[in-house]
């Protein structure tokens, strides 16, 4: 990252006074040293996005892109502080779940009337993608992907436990009881854990529980702002997971890095994580030094009544102040957005789902590794109703759910406390 920043700063310095228009860009996804400008060979979210940005900076005439140093964990805090200080980056990435808060304040530029001129065709976006970036009928951002939770599978461990069917696909549970049964089978056959996920750090465990609540037709709060967490559905969802901890078939204490390492080390048959790591695990599985060798990706299985998995969307926005006060930078920023939109297929290499119909129907997209294995995910993608308090609500749930599996807080107490806290947030 440092090199990128220094490099970008040097480029910016050499062109100052010349015609090049500098566009500052804020993003999460992590740092990638030496991403280069080849958008077709980079691996992993950080390097793929940085290679696209570098290529944009190199290939768009008269525009240089300066990627600002940001930290993933504190990204939104940094962006908000930058807005509050009047110096937001000219382009920045955000989640669909954060759009409500930013757009509601009038922080973001309304891009609706400028997209076509910039070479971005909103009609090529999938309906769900266009809905995701639309607030009150206006397009406030350019969508880049859909991402969702998947089950990443170690087929060797599943094979040993007899959990592979005749088509070579993994046999996954269809009920909480089957989940426990199959987990026990894996443990008996291999001595390894059945399932790993980050239950101790980022809200991956929360997303897991949410998916299982949605599968029962329930949600954590209603559209009109009533928290509904202390419910039978939540209890069922949590017990489905804690039964694995109680039986010693999964370890709740692993954080993101540790759970990923456990999966790559062949210490867990299933890893629950997002679409963003498919290409990474695929390349790791090809490495003979990595224990995981037979890698498969599956849709989040349906344990209750209907299919559902947590999903969100990454999108790019331009601050309203840039559109209003600085037309040259705004035009340059639009060109960068168009470039990113044009490279949607490269971004889809991460494992994310494309937002463009032309990409979704292309052979290149279908040929991406493991793509066919989780084709059903787009159908079952779900999320909570939009809320300006999304981040804080996720934190409440993460804290209380962790209290259940890390500190043995009784489920009823944790759900009761979570409901009170979320209601407080919704009422503020």
């Amino acid at each position: 990252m440092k090199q990128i920043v220094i490099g970008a700063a040097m480029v910016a310095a050499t062109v100052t006074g010349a015609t090049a228009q500098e566009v500052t860009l804020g993003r999460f996804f992590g740092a990638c040293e030496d991403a280069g400008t080849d958008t077709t060979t980079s691996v992993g979210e950080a390097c793929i996005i940085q290679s696209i940005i570098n290529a944009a900076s190199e290939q768009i005439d008269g525009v240089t892109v300066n990627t600002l140093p940001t930290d993933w964990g504190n990204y939104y805090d940094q962006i908000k502080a930058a807005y509050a200080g009047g110096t937001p980056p000219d382009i920045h990435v955000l989640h669909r779940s954060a759009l409500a808060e930013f757009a509601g304040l009038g922080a973001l530029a309304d891009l609706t009337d400028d997209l076509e001129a910039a070479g971005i065709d909103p009609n090529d976006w999938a309906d769900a993608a266009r809905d995701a970036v639309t607030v009150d009928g206006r397009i406030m951002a350019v969508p880049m992907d859909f991402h969702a939770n998947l089950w990443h599978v170690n087929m060797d461990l599943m094979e040993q436990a007899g959990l592979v069917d005749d088509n070579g696909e993994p046999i996954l549970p269809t009920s909480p009881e089957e989940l426990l049964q199959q987990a026990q089978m894996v443990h008996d056959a291999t001595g390894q854990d059945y399932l790993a996920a980050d239950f101790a750090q980022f809200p991956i465990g929360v997303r897991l529980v949410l998916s299982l609540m949605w599968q029962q037709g329930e949600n954590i709060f209603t559209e009109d702002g009533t928290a509904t967490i202390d419910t039978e559905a939540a209890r069922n969802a949590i017990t489905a997971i804690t039964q694995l901890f109680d039986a010693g078939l999964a370890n709740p204490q692993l954080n993101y890095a540790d759970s990923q390492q456990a999966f790559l080390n062949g210490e867990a048959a299933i890893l629950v994580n997002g679409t963003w790591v498919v290409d990474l695990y695929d390349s790791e599985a090809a490495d003979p030094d990595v224990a995981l060798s037979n890698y498969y990706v599956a849709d989040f299985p349906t344990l209750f009544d209907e299919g559902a998995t947590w999903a969100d969307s990454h999108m790019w926005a331009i601050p309203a102040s840039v559109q209003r006060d600085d037309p040259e930078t705004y035009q340059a920023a639009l060109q960068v957005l168009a470039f990113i939109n044009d490279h949607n297929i490269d971004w889809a290499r991460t494992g994310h789902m494309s937002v463009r119909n032309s990409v979704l129907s292309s052979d290149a997209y279908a040929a991406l590794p493991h793509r066919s294995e989780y084709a059903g995910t787009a159908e079952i993608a779900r999320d909570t109703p939009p809320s300006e308090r999304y981040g804080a609500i996720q934190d409440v749930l993460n804290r209380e759910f962790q209290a259940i599996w890390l500190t043995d807080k009784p489920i009823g107490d944790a759900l009761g406390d979570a409901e009170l806290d979320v209601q407080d947030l919704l009422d503020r």
Partner: protein
Amino acid sequence: MTSINKRRNHLSEAQAAWVLLLPFLAVYGAFLVYPFFRGIWISLHDWNLLAVAFNPDAREFVGVRNYERIMWGRNIEWAALAHPTLQILGIAGVGISVFLRWTNRASRATAIALGLASVLLFVLPGFHPGEGGRWYDRRFWPTVGNTITFVGLTVPGVTISALVLAAALNRETRAMSVLRTLFFLSQVLSVTVVTLIWQIMFSPRQGLIANLTELFGGSPIVWLTDESFAMAAIVITTIWWSLGIAMILFLAGLQDISKDLYEAGALDNATGLRAFWHITLPNLKRTVTVVVVLQIILHFQVFGQSHLMTNGGPNDTTQVLVRYIYQTAFRDSELGRASAMAVFLFVIMGSFSILQFILGREDD
């Protein structure tokens, strides 16, 4: 600057003093005094960070409601034994300070300070929500409690280990000066580096500590996500990190102690530990006070260790006040509420500064 020096003969002493002080006062005023009062002003408003940035009129004066919302609740009652352990400790503290003052073993200021702290320890934990009541902010007081626990563990930890190290390294050999530098070195690292190092140390998979535990046949502790070890983990990290300054202060104090005292002590058969207890410690009293008070003020502001190593978890056991302020201000955009918490933190730290002031004067 040079132009001022050339004209120095034409300025009176007072004028020169003002001229020299001016840059400092300007910076101090702009970056400390003004933001401080502004913070208090903001704490009296319903002030959304982002909304006010886009529309300055989006704030609303609410008086002390932010303070009420964080510190108070519905149906809050007070009982003498709502939290027996702490409150009995408080009563005992009052008794001890009266006794110490009575028997002249403590000065008036020390007795008053100890007495006041004990009264607070008796009074504050007595508040609790009554029938059907609850705190408006369920997390605030537990967070304050965590911060106090952190300070209560870190400050003695730093002080004692720095004192022991300083006493051991207080010799004029090359090896000792190398060691002194080594022990000081951790102090210059930034919190990101320190927490990164210790996250690796504590990792149950590749960490040094886990490897050692496994070597001796134990199963590795998952430090950062285990309720009973998470706080210990960030305390250990902090002790390692902030040992340096305390050690240097103690070394300075040690070198102030006259060698004659030790020689005289040696004649009375006071060497080694005994000399440390009867000569070194009493002479270091002042330094110990300074170190303790400085550390208290410093560690009440803990943020990075909790934010980067444990995210305040598990179950909020390592959530500390500054992290809560940060989240409230930047994640939740509630600047007014966050400022109210910051003012609360200021009052705590301010009282310790006053305490240091009193104790410092007393020694004179």
